[in-house]
């Protein structure tokens, strides 16, 4: 395994420690519950926005904490939802008079941990709501499945509800808003390589040199199909077209377009992908009103990318434009 890691069991705590040391004035770190929070949270009168999920998706979500974004994140171990106790403790620490909104990606483990954490917090009189995010079009949604997964598109839900929370929206309003953003957000990803969880020490799955996994999940879960490797134009088409036809997005729509790196793909390639996707949308009469090219929600060191589209309206666009500051930064 080629990684910067000491004891794999300490991978998450050591990462969080580094994050805390790098942001002493703006972040608060509670090692007992893997909690990373805004130094000034909970803010009186403002609903606290909390996201938890497994680790290994950084910058999601611990590096997305800051004014205008999350009040706190409580990650679990790599690819494992946090224990419900962490959720409960986080809800207690973040409890403001306006309440706590728990944003949860739609996975069995995460749902259970956050539902149980919410119950326990409510039993102590804290106002809590859970909002599920499920933007991944790769998964067929039916009553025989666990439903769509929450992936990189959760950035937009976080950004929008966090901006609205800063302006004093109520917990109920935020749940409505979050659902609305989630309902117009669609993502699909592909893996060029597997990823290597530190504790496993070897790649999670095998992918031949001339294959890629279309529709991969951010935990290396298989996607829709294995395909033969192809040029960037083909890869982008195979990601974008199922997204466009899913909502569907259509001519005249204005969208936010995100090209998200999965961890091992350099930003040069992400911008190359962006150019192709932007043009392909333009050819269909779909305008990119806002764009995002970077790593937002990774799968450890996996090479690959996901594309997210959000259908914009004036309210969503304005919330996405609102100022925010997080640990992930250049300067």
């Amino acid at each position, binding site marked *: 395994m080629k990684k910067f890691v000491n004891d794999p069991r300490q991978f998450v705590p050591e990462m969080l420690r580094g994050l805390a040391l790098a942001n002493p004035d703006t972040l608060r770190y509670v090692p007992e519950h893997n909690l990373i929070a805004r130094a000034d949270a909970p803010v009186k009168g403002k609903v606290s926005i909390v996201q938890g999920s497994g680790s290994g998706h950084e910058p999601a979500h611990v590096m997305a904490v800051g004014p205008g974004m999350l009040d706190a994140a409580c990650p679990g171990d790599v690819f*494992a939802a946090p224990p*419900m106790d962490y959720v409960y403790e986080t809800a207690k620490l973040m409890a403001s008079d306006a309440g706590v909104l728990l944003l949860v990606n739609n996975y069995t483990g995460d749902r259970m941990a956050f539902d149980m954490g919410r119950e326990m917090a409510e039993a102590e009189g804290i106002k809590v709501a859970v909002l599920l995010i499920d933007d991944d079009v790769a998964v067929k949604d039916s009553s025989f499945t666990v439903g769509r997964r929450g992936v990189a598109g959760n950035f937009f839900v976080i950004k929008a509800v966090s901006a609205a929370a800063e302006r004093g929206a109520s917990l109920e309003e935020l749940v409505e808003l979050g659902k609305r953003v989630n309902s117009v957000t669609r993502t699909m990803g592909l893996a060029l390589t597997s990823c290597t969880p530190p504790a*496993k020490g070897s790649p999670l799955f095998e992918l031949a040199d001339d294959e890629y996994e279309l529709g991969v999940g951010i935990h290396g879960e298989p996607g829709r199909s294995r395909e033969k490797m192809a040029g960037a134009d083909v890869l982008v088409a195979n990601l974008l077209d199922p997204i466009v036809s899913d909502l569907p997005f259509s001519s005249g729509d204005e969208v936010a377009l995100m090209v998200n790196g999965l961890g091992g793909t350099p930003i040069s390639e992400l911008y190359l992908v962006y150019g192709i996707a932007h043009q392909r949308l333009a050819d269909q009469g779909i305008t990119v009103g806002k764009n995002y090219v970077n790593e937002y929600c990774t799968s450890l060191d996996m090479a690959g990318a996901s594309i997210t589209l959000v259908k914009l309206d004036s309210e969503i666009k304005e919330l996405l434009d609102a100022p925010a500051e997080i640990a992930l930064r250049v300067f």
Partner: protein
Amino acid sequence: MKSTQADVDAAVRTIAQTVVDNEKAFSDLDAVAGDGDFGFSMARGFEKVLAGWDDFDRSDPGTFLTKVALVITSRIGGTSGPIWGTLFLRAGTTVKGSETVTGEQWVAALRAGVEGIKTRGGADLGDKTLLDALAPATDALEKALAEGADGPAAVRAFADEARRAADATSTMQARRGRASYSGERSIGSVDAGATAVAVLAEAVASR
């Protein structure tokens, strides 16, 4: 069959140690169709059980199991924390107050665990989860006891059926948990959680 607190103590210790010893094996099972963290998650929880071993309240087996459940849920993440926590919690609640646990009580405790897991995770038999080992193994335990088996023989019957049923999950398609995203590709490999039930039962039976 009558289990004292000492028997339950020994069984839980065997389970905890076996989980820790199988960290890599369990994770590798989960890597086939899941995300490879099952062994890691379980080991972190049960090593915490071992670390706090001497401090558990041992008033009676039920109380003991409940306390173990709390440690499990406080440290195991992913799907397994709530699932295994629920199993130990429901089992503990079912037998609470009894100094010793009879075979019938164990069957009831495990049934309560199965029902709790169904409610918690929304899975049913046939969805390719640990339920597909736990439920038939509990039936086998009940049958062995009804046929007059003593404690060790009854536990052995539980373990044998758990193993058979866990192996049989390889023909199933996962409909719950992370393996369900694999769709048809989940067919052909055994479920990690079901196999863990078999491994742990065999360890307890072989003591």
